[in-house]
């Protein structure tokens, strides 16, 4: 089973209750504008934010919890990993602080404690501890309009398609997160194009596969190089020996 969040952009009123709830549940510090923050409201102290688009459209931004997360694939120590339920979570005990995950994320989600002496990577963890206790994530609980809801991924995809089918003139015919980068656990249905949320729209490959091939060829490359070098050495040694012998003969 795999859980997910579906956000209906048309229902969001931008009240930011989800943001407040998130901060409260995780005991996050207050936010202040900093030079290193991207201008999307996310920060080490805000794991979700609400972005306003022209025409009173509000889009909630948070970690997409990819089914095949690039961040988890890139982390050298596996500090980022996917739970059984599908949440991509972070283990600060393992982290080195290399920030490869931040480079690798196609949505630019992970944030860093730039001003801390002991900095960690920060992002939405889908309230996985609450899930274990049988609760919903704080944000979906707090939403007064039901714009963001929690449930089984398959069911929510179906729900999204149902809503689109029910009011095709209201929605764009697409559930964001269904196929993107191999599928994500945070889904959107929307009346405006949400491609601006990612660095590159329409990227449907699972990112870990890009490095997978390279990583799989590591052992053969290693042994192959060794064999080549040994072989070369043997040949040259032999040739030099023969050359020496022939020179000896000539002498």
């Amino acid at each position: 089973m795999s859980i997910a969040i579906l956000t209906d952009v048309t229902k969001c009123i931008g009240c930011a209750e989800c943001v407040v709830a998130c901060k409260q549940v995780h005991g996050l510090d207050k936010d202040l504008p900093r030079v290193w923050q991207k201008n999307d409201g996310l920060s080490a102290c805000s794991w979700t934010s609400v972005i306003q688009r022209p025409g009173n459209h509000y889009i909630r931004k948070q970690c997409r919890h990819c089914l095949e997360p690039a961040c988890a694939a890139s982390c050298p120590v596996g500090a980022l990993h996917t739970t059984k339920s599908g949440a991509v979570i972070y283990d600060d005990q393992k982290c080195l602080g290399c920030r490869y995950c931040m480079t690798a994320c196609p949505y630019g989600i992970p944030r860093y404690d730039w001003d801390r002496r002991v900095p960690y990577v920060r992002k939405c963890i889908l309230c996985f501890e609450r899930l274990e206790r049988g609760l919903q994530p704080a944000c979906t609980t707090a939403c007064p309009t039901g714009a963001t809801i929690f449930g089984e991924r398959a069911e929510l995809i179906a729900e999204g398609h149902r809503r689109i089918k029910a009011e095709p003139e209201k929605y764009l015919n697409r559930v964001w997160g269904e196929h993107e980068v191999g599928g994500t656990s945070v889904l959107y249905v929307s009346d405006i194009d949400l491609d601006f949320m990612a660095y590159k729209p329409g990227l449907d490959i699972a990112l870990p596969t890009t490095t997978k091939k390279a990583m799989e060829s590591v052992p053969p490359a290693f042994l192959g190089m060794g064999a080549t070098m040994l072989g070369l050495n043997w040949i040259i040694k032999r040739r030099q020996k023969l050359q020496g012998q022939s020179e000896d003969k000539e002498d």
Partner: protein
Amino acid sequence: MNRVHVTKTILWMLTGLALAVALTRFAFGLGVTTNLTDTTPWGLWIGFDVMAGVALGAGGFVITAIFYILRQEKFHPLVRPAVLTALLGYIAVILSLLVDLGLPWNIWHMMIYWNPHSPLFEVGWCVMLYTTVLLLEFSPVPLAETSRWANIRRVLMKFRFPLVLLGIMLSTLHQSSLGSLFLITPFKSYPLWYTPLLPILFFISAIALGLMMVSFESLCTSWLYRRPAENNLVARLGSAARWVLGFYLLVRLLDLKISGNLALIFSGNWESWLFIAELLIMAIIPIILFSIPRVRHSATGQWIGSFLVVAGTILNRVNVGGLTMVGTTGEYYFPSWMEVSISAGIVAALALVFLFAIEKFQIWETRPREPESDPHVQPAFSRGGQTWLGSPSVAGRTRYSLAFIIAVAIGFALIPAHKIDSSGVVDIVAARALGGDTLFVDGNRDGFGVAFPHAAHIKAGKGKESCVGCHHMNLPLDRQSGCYSCHRGMYLTADAFGHDWHASAAGGNVACVDCHTRGEDRTAATARPCADCHKDLMPEGAAIKVNTYTVPSYADAMHDLCIPCHRQAAATNSDHPDLYRCPTCHNGKSPDWPTLAGRQPWKRRLNNHNILPVVSAGIEGPTP
């Protein structure tokens, strides 16, 4: 040997500067020292130190391969310097990683927590192993200096060939895996650089760079110590490098052709020019230079050729490592001077180790020595000062330690304290009046403060009309906001304005002209004064008028606010002759009032927070 002295002095100064910056970085975090952001989490330290550092260490495996595997005996003079450079290069990589990593003390986690899918994991392991291999490869050289370790040396010499072989195998892996690192960012990297062949391209260019790095180094040290360079060998290396570079060029262009991105080269945007420049510097010009026999054998030609390859490959690594992602992320990053100084300092420190090693050990065939190293040479009194600072070791110690500490001190002086002060705005809980009339004012939260008889002051000021005398500038609707909400730095001027806050609150870029008059430079100087909008911030009769966006430090503000009145009162009121004395207020007592102690949960403070949950400006690519 003046050339060596000057060089070493400069290197020591760079090291000192870097030390000061490194201490700052560990004391205050990455945000204060670097220009890295959430969008550009990797900067100069990864792009130059790690990516280029590993590449520059390629000389080690290339030359050992030529000497041991291909059995080209005549390259023997270059083997030791190449291995030493490689070793130092990898140590540089490790050092800069220790600075760059957020939690460097966890670097050993790589050994116990495995994620074999991560290219970085593979690079990390290879770097660790290869550094060890290089150490073992190189250690016979210093061990040869004393007979005490002769046994260990003999064992190491026995395992030389397998070590070299292992070194080459490991290098193959991580030189290419550095390219694999960026396979995962097809959404960010520019197509001219992004290709599934990145690992292979990295490996080939590392070979060419290895050849040229060894040459460059031979030329550098020969200049520094005025010793004859190995020009013949360098010419041979150049000749080999031109074939490798040619192959590299071919693979790269063919790959672009197949992926259909070849046309992008001539698209005329800045990436295309960068690409052309990179290829020219890194491959095309050197290939031409090294193809002309006369140039190949001339010292100048070798200088230029090897330098171009080295510079070009560094440029390539920096491009792949982040420079070409700017188009996608829309965020321009330029390293802060502190990042640069750390990079330079690490290079300088290891250059010093290199110079130390070639003076102390048998690295080059002829060991460069200061003439005065011989104890019986008559001391040379310097020409200008007619001084003699002692034997080379004593003189060096005297001279370089001075250069070093001066550089460290300058480093500390240059640290941007305002960044430290304003980055973590003090965690503020408004102090409440106690017993209804007394405030405990403790600006820097150290438990020491001033017990302020609020009610008494109101009374002395004849009622509520006098509020504005002190509360000269309230946040909207909030008379009780503490002085520290704006006067953040205890002793340094703070920027109270918060440009980003205003910009986003005013509706993003379109609102710039609301404050910055059209047609003028957009600086604080040309902007409208705060009071134009915030009429209530500066009531009539306020003690201090604020006209700029900066506010004095907390201490200054408080002193300026309190001292004049106290002085006046002391002069006119004979009951309190001591009013003007510092200890009257700063009496060092720390009243342990329970309501002031401890942190309160965020929930209760929420109402006082200026949170900005709603962001109007979205991600719309680079600002036009």
